[in-house]
């Protein structure tokens, strides 16, 4: 039984990390007021680029960085469309998804289904004789630790730094931020690009660390789950961590219960991650809340001449 428990707990971070990374990226973008639905496409570009770089014989760490850069690059296009050319954020986000998936498919054609040695776990083979903590730790990989650091970093940046304050101000009331001397457009572009870098990292995690292979469609809806996670988490990095862990725990549990032959209804288990995450995050945002946490200017286009 403790074997089952340790196996399950050890599996959770790998389920949670890609969702969490993408959610953190979207939080950065949306706290600056840019509604961001592009995660699924940005993750696809990140995953493909990471795999392509590693398959070209370059170190996996650089593959991850290339995925980050690719995600940032595609998001820069999205940012220019919505911030500079004031495109509709919903439409531009959906278009970016299509462009990202399509580009990844076309450019990644020669890299499909070619396994490679990517980022390895701390222990490739978990011998059952080792202790519970050791078994848990050996199942993790360096990017899981990076993800934890990033949660703290994003939270600290948004809540405790001057730049974070400016970013939030742009998302809440761009007019006032403008008067206060904040370059609204630059802040928004920077936030979207930084968010895209995190989504790219999430995609690269899936290919270079989690599966060591690239295939079209491998993001498999995780970008959309991240979009929902951000809303459930009320745009708060700490609650995104909580939500991703709950989602990952529920998702990791289903196959493991099936594998021991436990008579649980499969379709209920499929629903569990969504239902549980929704329930916990709604409850957590109901406790001690006043008003909404949604950035007031989310999805709005800021035009300086419209300022009243």
């Amino acid at each position, binding site marked *: 039984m403790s074997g089952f428990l340790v196996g399950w707990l050890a599996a959770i971070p790998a389920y949670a990390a890609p969702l969490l990374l993408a959610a953190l990226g979207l939080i950065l973008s949306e706290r600056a007021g840019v509604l961001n639905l592009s995660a699924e496409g940005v993750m696809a570009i990140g995953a493909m680029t990471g795999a392509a770089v590693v398959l070209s014989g370059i170190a996996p760490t650089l593959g991850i960085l290339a995925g980050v850069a690719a995600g940032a690059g595609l998001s820069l296009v999205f940012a220019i469309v919505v911030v500079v050319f004031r495109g509709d954020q919903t439409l531009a986000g959906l278009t970016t998804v299509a462009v990202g998936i399509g580009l990844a*498919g076309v450019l990644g054609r020669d890299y499909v289904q*070619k396994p490679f040695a990517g980022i390895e776990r701390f222990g490739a083979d978990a011998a059952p004789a080792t202790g519970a903590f050791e078994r848990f730790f050996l199942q993790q990989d360096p990017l899981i630790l990076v993800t934890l650091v990033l949660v703290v970093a994003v939270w600290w940046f948004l809540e405790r730094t001057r730049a974070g304050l400016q970013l939030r101000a742009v998302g809440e009331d761009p007019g006032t931020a403008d008067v206060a001397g904040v370059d609204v457009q630059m802040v928004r572009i920077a936030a979207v690009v930084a968010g895209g870098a995190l989504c790219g990292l999430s995609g690269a995690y899936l290919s270079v660390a989690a599966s060591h292979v690239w*295939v079209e469609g491998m993001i*498999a809806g995780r970008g959309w789950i991240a979009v929902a996670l951000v809303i459930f988490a009320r745009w708060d990095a700490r609650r995104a961590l909580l939500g991703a862990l709950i989602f990952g725990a529920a998702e990791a549990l289903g*196959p493991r219960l099936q594998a021991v032959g436990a008579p649980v*209804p499969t379709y209920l288990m499929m629903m569990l991650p969504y239902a549980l995450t929704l329930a916990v995050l709604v409850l957590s945002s109901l406790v001690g809340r006043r008003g909404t946490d949604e950035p007031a200017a989310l999805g709005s286009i800021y035009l300086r001449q419209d300022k009243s």
Partner: protein
Amino acid sequence: MVKSFASGLLALGAAATLLSGTATSAWSFELKGEPKVAFIYAAAAKDGGWNEAIDAGRAAVEKDLGLTVAVAENVPEDATKLRAAIDLFVKRGFNIIVGTTYGYSEPIAEAAKAYPDVAFLNASGTTNGPNLESFYARTYQGWYLAGIAAGSVTQSKKLGMVAGFPVGVVNWDANAFILGARSVDPSIETVVVYTNSWWDPVKEGQVAEAILDQNADVLATDLSSTSPLAAAERRGASSVGYQLDMSHAAPEGILTSVVFHWDRYLVPTIKSITDGTWTPQEYGAFEGIDNGVIGLAPFGKRVPDAAKAKIAEVQAKMVAGAFDPFTGPIEKQDGSVAVPAGEKVSDEALWSMDYFVKGAIGTMPAAQ
């Protein structure tokens, strides 16, 4: 009961007559003009799995029949999208159109009615007509043989299989694999876990690990990605691939892969269309190991010679029609009778197989 069965038969006969449209029992089709062939895929043709296996058949059609074949990729399993692609091909004079997925079944049947002079084939489809034939293969025959290989190498007496959705075509693979393994050693158990998706390499790898954590030392995948094999390789476990030879993903531990050779169906069928001798089968083409559509990839280094000999023997019996994996007595997971001694599971019952045989560890969701 007898009466309703008889009237059911009558109704079936009447329906068949109606469907064929004429009094003749067989459908016949005549191609007008030069043959122009098009293949339509729901995802990338080079997906490393299902589509790529069919695309190898397409390449054989080009080479062996000297036809040029047009390809459309990423056409969603959506009636309007597929129809637009078909309309375009027909407008450009294509008269042999090959669909490649179950999700095309209904729209391709509609298109076949709209274009009676165009020949349609559809892989893993469920619809047929005077100018439409769906085709699939008895994959369970290959899985039974792979089960013998797996049963011959397991030390822990526990195998695993990563599967997609709990539907007939998946369940028969799992059950045949289990039966094959237990023909070697009846104490072998097999963990079967459904991912509830057809295409999620990350999840497939994670599910594989959940199975390996249960001490399975041979892991088979009934899906298209190699990530379960990579997970097995990391743990030193053996593995069985599917669709294409997946040995590149697990050079140490691979035992074999259950593979499709669609050229063995596509080349003769398309040739018969161009020759004017094609007669689509009313219930579709259901190809097997006898004509080589299903087979095993070359064995890995862990498969002992004795197992190879046994597999060759069983395969020869299957080809000769002397052995079928789903011949009773077969017990269900809970010990009740699935197939009585001496009886054989009918093709119809195969498609609706909704139970595990004895020796499976896993949960079969209630039907529907």
